[in-house]
């Protein structure tokens, strides 16, 4: 317990300045003056979750087109401007958000604000640029198909959700990409990119007053139109689902998904602790038991994801040579059953909590990472304050919670199991 108390002693709450412009744009500022660098990020509340049937992947395609020029700046001009300023820029699309960001020296981050305001309002999406860029995205899709693990996880999502949009791949289905037109993308842009559907995060060496002036100057006159949130729910899973995915691989693998809870649910903390106990670091249970002692697995990883409208506990495992997937699966269940039936020790719980807390402290070394975390929490509806509440919530998790939560979610009826197997003997 001593270690745990000390780790918590290192945890200082963060301070974030937050406000909203009249047009609905939320602004969050996290100050860190250690180096003269600012990470400027804009998070839009749009991603694969919000996409209509038949147009999966459209948010990601739009993200690509967002680098293809505005009325003011030609294609790639944005990249060149940031590059000449010595900045690093990028964009990414996830289930529930699309993010653009640039890290720049703090004497020039206004550039990125100016460029993002332009991107929010003035994208052109020309047909000439659309055709080759769609081809690029289709190549990106093929890259993923050629990665056996990406294919396995994609199939796992499809089987775990029957009607909820969390089943759709962020990059979309190939036939949907083929059918998506320039106008579809443009309409999607017009519908979703506006101040009322966005969050700006400035993290780093920022003078908040000066930043406010800049944000108002560049975004203040853009009209905000709230976008209705969409609520989908997945009916509770009633019975195990299984599938086999055949690919030309040398190495078989196994994936399991358990439905858990959305991001505002209390049980997520115990689930985070369980994920750490099972697979974080060399001393984790799967590593010590299945990889090392039994020599059954090469690697077992777990990942607990909480989103606004649902969550899941994913497990990926690779068997060692000559171990069949059935044996590996049984051994994984033995480890999970153990978690449900035998109380974990105080020291194991303390270790898991220390790890979770240390990761939160490590993240503060990077304004970009902490900015991304703040944006993610805002979009998920939890608010940046949950960063400060996290240590206390993690600390509250006790031995009984870990057992109870394992018993509640890691059940046979609640799981989907996928086998990746070779199509042929090589």
């Amino acid at each position, binding site marked *: 317990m001593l270690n745990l108390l000390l780790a918590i002693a290192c945890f200082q709450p963060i301070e974030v300045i937050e406000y909203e412009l009249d047009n609905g744009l939320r602004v969050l500022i996290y100050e860190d003056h250690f180096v003269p660098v600012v990470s400027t990020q804009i998070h839009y509340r749009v991603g694969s979750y919000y996409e209509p049937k038949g147009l999966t992947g459209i948010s990601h395609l739009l993200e690509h087109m967002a680098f293809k020029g505005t009325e003011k700046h030609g294609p790639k001009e944005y990249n060149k401007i940031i590059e000449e300023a*010595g900045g690093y820029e990028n964009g990414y699309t996830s289930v529930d958000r699309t993010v653009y960001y640039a890290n720049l020296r703090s004497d020039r981050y206004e550039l990125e604000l100016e460029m993002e305001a332009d991107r929010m309002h003035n994208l052109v999406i020309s047909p000439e640029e659309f055709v080759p860029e769609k081809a690029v995205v289709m190549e990106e899709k093929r890259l993923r198909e*050629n990665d056996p693990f990406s294919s396995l996880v994609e199939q796992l999502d499809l089987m775990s959700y029957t009607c909820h949009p969390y089943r759709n791949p962020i990059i979309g289905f190939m036939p949907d990409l083929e059918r998506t037109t320039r106008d579809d993308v443009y309409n999607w842009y017009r519908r979703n990119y506006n101040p009322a559907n966005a969050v700006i995060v400035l993290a780093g060496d920022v003078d908040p007053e000066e930043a406010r002036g800049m944000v108002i100057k560049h975004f203040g006159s853009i009209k905000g139109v709230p976008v209705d949130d969409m609520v989908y729910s997945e009916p509770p899973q009633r019975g195990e689902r299984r599938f086999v995915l055949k690919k030309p691989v040398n190495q078989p693998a196994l994936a399991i998904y358990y439905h858990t809870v959305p991001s505002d649910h209390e049980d997520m903390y115990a689930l985070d602790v369980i994920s750490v106990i099972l697979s974080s670091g060399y001393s984790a249970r799967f590593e010590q038991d299945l990889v090392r002692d039994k020599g059954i697995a090469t690697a077992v990883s777990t990942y607990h994801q909480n989103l606004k409208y649902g969550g899941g506990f994913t497990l990926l495992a690779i068997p060692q040579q000559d171990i069949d997937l059935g044996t590996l699966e049984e051994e994984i269940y033995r480890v999970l059953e153990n978690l449900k039936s035998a109380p974990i020790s105080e020291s194991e719980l303390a270790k898991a909590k220390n790890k979770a807390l240390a990761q939160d402290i490590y993240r503060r070394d990077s304004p970009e990472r902490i900015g991304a975390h703040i944006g993610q929490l805002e979009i998920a509806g939890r608010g940046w304050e949950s960063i400060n509440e996290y240590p206390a919530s993690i600390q509250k998790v006790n031995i009984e919670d870990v057992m109870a939560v394992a018993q509640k979610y890691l059940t046979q009826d609640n799981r989907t199991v996928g086998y990746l197997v070779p199509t042929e003997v090589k």
Partner: protein
Amino acid sequence: MIKAFIILFPIFVSFATDIQRDTLDNGLVILTVEAHRIPVVEMRAYVRAGSVLDPSGKEGLANLTGQCLIRGTGQYSYGELVESIESVGGEFTPFVTEDYAGFNGKVLSKDLGRLIDILESCLQHPEFDSLELLRLKRETISLIKVRSDNPFEVSEKGFRSLLFGDHPLGHFPEGIESSVAAITAPEARDFYDTYYRPNNTFLIFVGDFIKDSLLMMLRSHFELWKRQEMPKLEFVEPAPIDRSKAKVIPMDISQAYILLGNFGPRYGEADWNAARVMNYVLGGAGLTSRISGTIREEKGLAYIAYSSFRRFINGGYFAAEVQTKKEMVNEAVTALIQEMEKIRDTIHVEEVARAKKFYTGYLPLAYDTYGEMASIIASIEIDDLGLDYLSRFEDYIRALTISDLQTAAKKYLHPERFYLLIVGDVDPEDIALDKIDWVQ
């Protein structure tokens, strides 16, 4: 704004340039940067004991030796060792590359003593238990198999082997299945005894500590570690490329993974800055580079299209890389060759100006976290650039001329003689290239 910048700049400069280098009597080099942003210390340990030192037929020996260091020591079992670090939320991971083996570590600063204790134990008192080595071998062979399903890994491995052949850079640190299976614990112990020496090692600490107390701690843990002269190894240089060679590695995938290139600069080469700025223009700058501009932006052939240099102590290479539909291989390869030809002929003033602005402007972003700082210090030490390198970096970049870049392009880019590797369901007959030998 200007005012804020002036006030902040000196703080930053002190973080950037205040790299301290101390050497213990036994030759152990200790590089430190004190920083107090968060209560955390990042540590790196580099021992020049990478896979280029694998004896022929023992490919994978350096990797198994480096990985085995945490699998039990004179003081701690593997379990105790990882528990000690992980129970306080710390991280301690072995790594083995072509040139170096060592550890990456990170702890809350209150646990720094614990980290150093573990580091000492692993570097100076590893056990090489044969059962632990057997486990590691099984895990390594499984990982080699997993990687054989990943076309990126297969293509890089294939290209390296085509380029370097029997030279130690021709294999990946993990080795090959058959050689890994044959490695024994006494061999790992011998490798360790030869290369894991203080005069062959440097340590890096960045973060929240007081340097004098850290040095005192390190002295008490490492001053008894015995130095020993390193064996002098001569590597037979791979034969220069006199005629283009190409190879297809068949794989049942929907794209072709293409790598095309030649030998490149190794560490310490005087024209490195010229070479990297030239490559930035050619294929290193992301979407604004020439290769990405042609292959991705203009033709829509690929999601990934770029070029890079990989440098090692005993060699290096240049490679341009594209993944595209198999029907488009010809077009993509032709485009890569044309871009190499073009940049040998012409580099525009605006391109050089933009590249220079990027490199000089980006500098503070390149090491704005403890971890990035530690990585930069490692490359300064490996490349022997001098502790004041970061403060001189902008001058180096500004002094580069178009002619420097063109000289580097002519030296390292050879559109008329190169190695080409393609992974995928591709028939060499469909690729219309003159003056090229296809190899099996």
